[in-house]
């Protein structure tokens, strides 16, 4: 098998996690040579239910979109962290917002590379709008994993965000990339 990378973006309904996943998948299919699929899972609740998007990026067509070896997992909610880290592969990268995911077992920190970053606080207070949280997370993800070309992802973000929020989202993306690159150098968050 060729190149394959699995990502999972999880949150509670309304946080924008599914959109974050979609932007990465769209970046792959529209702005790179890769194939990608995105499968969302959600519950009956419109707001507040657990939601996740599983993205597969591959250099081969994807016949059946089943994520079994997740390389990257981002979440902004404890319930989602607890529920959806089952099929992470050993050494997977986990990105969480420590304000909302407080309980990370020690064994997870050994098994995976856990990075903590206050996504929601930063989006709200440094960027200026909490809705940019998902784009900020996409930035951190790309800076940290280098899974896709950062400019390809930038194009995908531009395609999707409303024009009035473009500058704000670009600011969020750039900050995310910077944080991601820093994490990449420094390694997982120490506890």
């Amino acid at each position, binding site marked *: 098998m060729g190149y394959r990378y699995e990502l999972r973006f999880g949150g509670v309904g309304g946080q924008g996690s599914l959109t974050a996943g979609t932007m990465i*998948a769209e970046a792959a299919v529209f702005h790179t040579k890769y194939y990608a699929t995105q499968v969302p899972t*959600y519950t009956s609740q419109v707001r507040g239910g657990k939601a996740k998007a599983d993205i597969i990026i591959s250099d081969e067509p994807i*016949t059946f*979109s089943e994520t079994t070896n997740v390389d990257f997992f981002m979440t902004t909610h404890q319930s989602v962290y607890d529920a959806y880290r*089952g099929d992470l592969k050993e050494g997977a990268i986990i990105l969480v917002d420590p304000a909302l995911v407080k309980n990370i077992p020690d064994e997870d920190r050994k098994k995976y590379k856990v990075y903590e970053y206050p996504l929601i606080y930063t989006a709200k207070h440094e960027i200026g709008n909490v809705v940019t949280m998902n784009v900020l997370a996409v930035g951190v993800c790309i800076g940290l994993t280098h899974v896709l070309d950062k400019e390809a992802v930038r194009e995908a973000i531009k395609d999707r965000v409303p024009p009035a929020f473009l500058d704000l989202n670009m600011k969020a993306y750039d900050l995310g990339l910077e944080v991601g690159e820093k994490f990449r150098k420094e390694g997982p968050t120490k506890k």
Partner: protein
Amino acid sequence: MGRIAFLDANAAVAEAAVIAGCGFYAGYPITPSSEVPETLAKIMPERGVPFIMMEDEIASINACIGASASGVKAMTCTSGPGLSLKQEALGEACIMEIPLVLVDVMRGGPSTGLPTRPSQADIMQARWGTHGDHPIIAISPCNAQEAIFETIRAFNLAEKFRQPVYILTDGLLSHLHAKVYLPDPEEVEIVERAAPTVPPEEYYPFDYNYEIPPLAPWWTKDGKSYRYHMSSLNHDKTGFPTVVPPFIQWQEKRLISKIMNHIDEIEKFEYYKMDDAETCVIAYGSVAEAARVAIDEARKAGIKVGMFRPITIWPFAEKQIRDLREKVKRIIVVEMNLGQYILEVQRAVAEKIPIYGVLQAAGIPIRPIQILEKIKNPEKSVEICMTEEELKKFGGGE
């Protein structure tokens, strides 16, 4: 030239409906089908095409019957519980021979069941959900790209055969986003309804001179409509009720034969790695893609296995399934229900070769690994196997 898009099968079906010339949509949203109306609500008004969110499922299909009788291509969309509600009107569309496309995104059941989880539990409801002898056409695409071409085909079949046509997808396929090509209408075959060849005063909606009588527009904006009667009671050529036995028998038989006489045109299926296969997996819809992965894996291990994938689910691929008896040693039917399509396979095979099932109605997709296990050891049960860790995912009141 068409365009490339990143869509789930729901949005793909919606986009394809517009390409096929869908001129009317009425529906009532229901998970996991709601992206169909969501997409159409955006793109149909832009084209000046009516999109109506009705008060319920029953009104939706009845509105579509009215629209179709008025000469436009009509579609509605729902999921299991909504499909139950639509069944009476579906029967009306069958007996009045109204072209109609009915999208059913299957979810777990019975009743409200599992709103956000996939299943294939409406296979038999699609066939026999409405009462009385009636024909049905049902199509089950396996991915978003195929959903586009099959939706266009569904409209074509509906118009050609004056017949309601199902598109059966499921909660997994309907939400799986993938890169697809949306063709321009000029790039695909689009069938328009046959126009009546006689003036209104000589027109009969069920003219005995035709296998499929042309359906005249009942009402048109320009006033050139044909005024005629339609009844959901058994009727004669005029559309008025009749109890004259030969008329009834003739009409009932014609309803079936107008489909069965053209079975080769309606049936569509795929053989995958079947040339030297000793085991044949039968799977349809998104499950077929899981089966494909399993078959590829099994082939690597030297197992001679292939797949027969019905794309047209109804009418049943009688001849193709019967022929399998001479070609393979065993059949494994894989479906996300407790055994529906397998019943027809069993009937057709008539105990000539063994038939095994991977039948799962657990609200989760059937995994390639389960199918692979079954291919390796057909006698073994491969029902959902989950680790404690995996089970934890499903905790809480979802």
